[in-house]
C-alpha cells in the first residue's frame, strides 16, 4: 500500500510499472483525474490541502478498501498546488484476484477521496476565483458503500 501527497506531477506509466505484481493478482484497475476546462476560461486550479490529515485520512480509506476487497495491492497519489488544464490531479490503483473487486475498490477509493480527504479546489479563471462547491451527488455516492 502506497500513499503519496505531493505538489510534483507523477508519471502514471512509471507508477504502474511496479504495481500489482503480487502473486494471485488477476486484475488491476487504475483511475486518473485530470483538470478539465469546461468554461474555456480556466487559467489554473489551486488545490489546498491539510498536511498530515491528508495522509491519515487517505490511509484509513485505503486500509478499509484493502481489507474489504482483499486487495493484493493499492496505491493513491494526490497532488496539491497550482494545476493547469490537462494536468493530472490524482490517481488510484487497485489490484485484486477478480475484476469486480478491483473495480469496486477503485470506485470506493474515488468516492471517499472526493468527500473525505481534506483537499479544496479553487478555480481561477479570467473572470475571477471561486472555490469549487461540494456536490450533493458526491455525498450521495457514499451511500453505495
Amino acid at each position, binding site marked *: 500500500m502506497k500513499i503519496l501527497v505531493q505538489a510534483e506531477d507523477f508519471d502514471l506509466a512509471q507508477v504502474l510499472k511496479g504495481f500489482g505484481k503480487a502473486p494471485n493478482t488477476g486484475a488491476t484497475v487504475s483511475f486518473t483525474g485530470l483538470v478539465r476546462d469546461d468554461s474555456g476560461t480556466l487559467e489554473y486550479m489551486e488545490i489546498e490541502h*491539510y498536511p*498530515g490529515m491528508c495522509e491519515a485520512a487517505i490511509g484509513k480509506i485505503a486500509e478499509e478498501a484493502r481489507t474489504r476487497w482483499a486487495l493484493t495491492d493499492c496505491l493513491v497519489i494526490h497532488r496539491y498546488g497550482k494545476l493547469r488544464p490537462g494536468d493530472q*490531479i*490524482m490517481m488510484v490503483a487497485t489490484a485484486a484476484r477478480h475484476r469486480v473487486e478491483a473495480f469496486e475498490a477503485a470506485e470506493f477509493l474515488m468516492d471517499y477521496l472526493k*468527500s473525505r*480527504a*481534506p*483537499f*479544496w479546489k479553487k478555480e481561477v479563471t479570467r473572470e475571477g476565483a471561486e*472555490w469549487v462547491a461540494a456536490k450533493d451527488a458526491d455525498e450521495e455516492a457514499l451511500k453505495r458503500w
Partner: protein
Amino acid sequence: MMDLLYFAWVRERTGVPREKIETTAATVMDLVEELKARDENYALAFADLKSLRVSLDQELADFDAPLEGVREVAFFPPMTGG
C-alpha cells in the same frame, strides 16, 4: 494551548491560516461561539455551520464533540478532493 487551523474560504474569511489560543470552551460549538464574538470576519467565517466541517486532531468530528485533551482543531468547507 490549542492550535486552530482554517482552510479554503474559512481561511480567507478569518484572514489567518492558523493561530494558537487559550480557551475554556467545552465543545466545538462553544469554541465557535467564542470565535464568532471576536469580530466581523470571524462572525462571517462561522455564519453558516451547515457549510462547515470540523476536525479534532485530524479526525472529522461533530460540532457537539468535547474539546478536552484536543490539541488541534481545524475548520473548513466540505472537502472537494479527487
